[in-house]
C-alpha cells in the first residue's frame, strides 16, 4: 500500500509538471495599449 501511495504522488507531480507550462502558454500576459495623442489648446 505504501508503494502505491508513493507512486500516486509521483504521477501527480509529473502531471503538474506537464500541465504547468501548458497553462502558462494559454494564459498570456494581459496587454495594455499605449495611446499617444498629439494635440494643442489652439
Amino acid at each position: 500500500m505504501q508503494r502505491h501511495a508513493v507512486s500516486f504522488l509521483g504521477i501527480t507531480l509529473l502531471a503538474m509538471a506537464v500541465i504547468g507550462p501548458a497553462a502558462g502558454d494559454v494564459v498570456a500576459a494581459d496587454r495594455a495599449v499605449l495611446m499617444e495623442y498629439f494635440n494643442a489648446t489652439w
Partner: protein
Amino acid sequence: MRYVVTPFVDDTYPGKVAFLAIHLSDGFQTNFGNTRASSYYPGSMTIPDTLVDAGMFHFIGTPGVPPMYDPPTQWISMVDARLAVPTDITIEIYPERLSETQWEFTADVCMETTGTARSLGINLAWTVDDYPQGYPYVYRKTVRGGYGPEVLDLNPGECVQVDATFTFSSIEFDRWAGVEVVAWAQTPASGWGETYQAATLSMTIYEDGFESGDLAGWTLTVP
C-alpha cells in the same frame, strides 16, 4: 462641457489603455513630448494625431464625431486590434517618495519564460488630468514630463528595472487624484515601432502618504 479626449480613456477600457495627451506648441509642451513628436517618429505630427503602440496604428484627425468625439470609433477599432495581440512582457510600477516634491518610480519589466529575447526601450512619463484649465474644452491626461527610452536587453524569465525621478509642482499637487504615471516597453530604435506592454499607476491612493508608509506630511500628534 466639451472634451478634447472623451471619458474613453477611463471608462471604455479601464486599466487597458495608457493614455498620453502630448501637447505641442501651445505653452503646455514638454521636452519629453517634443522629443517623441520630432525625433522619435518620422515626419511631423499633425494636430490632432494619434499613435497607438508606438506606431502600430497611426490616425490623423479627430477619432469620432466632433465636437464630443464620442464615440471615438477610430480609436476603439485600433485599441481592440492591439488588445487581441498576445504579449510576453509584463510591467509593474513601484513608487517611492523621496522628498516633499520628488518621487522615484520604478518600472519592473519582465519577460515570460516563453518570450523572445530582445532589446526594449523602456519609458516612464506622467500625466495630469483636466489640465490645462480655462479653455472651452476639458483636456485629459496631459503629459507633464517623462524619462526614456532606456534601452535594456531582456531574456525569457528575466526582469529589468528602470528608475525615473519626477519632480512635481503645484500643478500636480492641486490635482493629485488626477496624476497618473505611465510606463511602457517598446522597440528601442527611433521610427515607427511597436509597444509590447504598458502600465499605469494612479497617485490617488498616495494622497496623504499613509498608504506608502510616509507620514512626513502628517501634522496630527497623539495627545
